[in-house]
């Protein structure tokens, strides 16, 4: 009987020791988090200078309609008549005919400013973030059209599924206080 009792105490001792070790382990994880935490929360954003306009943003987002939308940086735009972000390659005419438009949803509006300049604005309700215009503008234009994650739509997934599919690794986490990476004139290339 005495032997039995001893066994129980040994088991209890081991149990208690293991319990304490586990608590210490969790505590270590807590310490690590506090030491390395990010006071400013982070959100996903696209680095427009890395984006190649591949089209994955429109299809890989967990949302039915992507959280990514196109942004126009007017200060960089060349206001070209022959806009390669707006028109398909070899357009039939330089006008607003649907057969000439590159955007699959017709989200870009072309308005005449003065000869020979045209203004291009994005209708965000129509934009699906496919980046066709971005690719066109990058290829032959100033690159004033670029994609950004809209934070009213983004669910801020732990692992962004577009980021996992991005061929140019353009997605990064940025501080929530400054959640956009915009193109600026002085950085344009």
């Amino acid at each position, binding site marked *: 009987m005495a032997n039995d009792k001893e066994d129980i105490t040994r088991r209890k001792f081991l149990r208690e020791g293991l319990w304490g070790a586990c608590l210490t382990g969790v505590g270590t994880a807590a310490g690590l988090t506090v030491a390395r935490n990010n006071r400013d929360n982070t959100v996903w954003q696209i680095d427009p200078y890395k984006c190649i306009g591949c089209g994955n943003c429109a299809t890989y987002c967990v949302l039915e309609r992507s959280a990514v939308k196109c942004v126009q940086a007017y200060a960089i735009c060349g206001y070209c008549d022959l806009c390669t972000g707006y028109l398909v390659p070899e357009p039939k005419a330089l006008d607003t005919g649907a057969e000439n438009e590159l955007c699959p949803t017709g989200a870009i509006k072309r308005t005449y400013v003065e000869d020979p300049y045209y203004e291009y604005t994005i209708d965000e309700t129509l934009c699906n973030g496919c980046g066709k215009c971005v690719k066109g503008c990058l290829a032959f234009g100033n690159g004033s059209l670029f994609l950004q994650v809209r934070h009213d739509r983004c669910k801020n997934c*732990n692992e962004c599924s577009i980021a996992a599919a991005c061929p*140019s690794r353009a997605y990064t986490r940025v501080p929530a206080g400054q959640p956009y990476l915009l193109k600026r004139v002085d950085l344009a*290339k």
Partner: protein
Amino acid sequence: MTRFARILTFTMALLVPCLSAVGELRFPPPEFESGYQFPQAAPLPTARSALYEYLDSAVLVAALLLASYLILRRRSRRAIFGLMILTLLYFGFWRDGCICPIGAIQNVTLTAFDSSYAIPITAGLFFMVPLVFTLFWGRVFCGAVCPLGAIQDAVLIRPVKVPRWLESGLRLMAYTYLGAAVLFAATGSAFIICRYDPFVAFFRLSGNWNILILGASLLLIGLFVGRPYCRFLCPYGVMLRHLSRLSRRRVTITPDECIKCRLCEDACPFGAIREPTEDWPEGEYKIAKRRLALFLVLLPVLVAAGGWAGYSLKERLARVHPRVRTAERMYLEESGQITETTNVSNAFRATGQASEVLYKDAAEIRHRLAVGGALLGAFVGFVVGGKLVALSVRRRRAEYEADPAGCFACGRCYTYCPKEHERRKKSREAAAGYR
């Protein structure tokens, strides 16, 4: 600038695509004569306030405290179910199933391995708080707080019994999943738990078709097999299982002494009720002892075999890392085995990095994943061996009790116990007496 000049520049741009690298705009922004002003763009929407993150953490702690009270003190299945639905609505449908402790395993792992990664404080809290609660009060998180558990628990209508051997065998998937998730998170390859979260698509009511189908089939199975994800897949569940064995207090079927009436025997849809056991019968004892010795010898063999199997998977494991995939593609193109280029290889060339740097990075990642793969395999081998050993040891149990590891603390078994009815009657009478 005349239109002709512009078209000329345009043609030049066509001819000299590398012009973009010069560092200035192809077409200088025009100087308007009509007094045109840039349109005022609407302000960009700001990110979700950090206050919500603190709210999530507060809700988690409050829900866990309430769950512990309802499960261990109130012992009311109805109240537990109510709390479960509330947390399903909050963490599941309102917060879109992100953030959750299951995925937070990866954030914590990455923090331990990558010094440049800054972990969000909520991810750290979501990982640790349920573990601490489990050390004190068992798997109360699984029972009433986890939205993934709740959605499965709510659809369970006709539970079938899963044989014990099948249950243990299928549970091996969860251990492998945990090991793989830790491996891929530690090497910065991918967050596979988030990528294959089966229910997040339901919570958001949108998502990838494959994931929707996976979630739907798990829910369909869940009509008959209680909580299939929790039992056979959940990586966080594996951690909670083992911590729950050590917990200070946890679910007891009876509030009093077990009278071995056997009424609770079939109460648990998750097969987590253990019947009383006797000592080994005289003849079997010797066989059992020999079996235990065999399995103890087999354990290191299984660990070694697992390690070897994991190591031989290194090529496939390495391909999960995007850098390795890029390197493989670039190698194929540069060695002339493939002539066409892809978005990935074009994007890599556009960065202007030397491919030698890429190959060196990839070799290092491959090495890390080979070592990690061997460790993962050894871990799985150890789990298999450990299970075999555990099965050949007989624990003495004097009464019916909830399996400390497998019990999800759902509270279904309480009402099966006649002693519980007695307790409730007494407490009702006591309450009436006060009035």
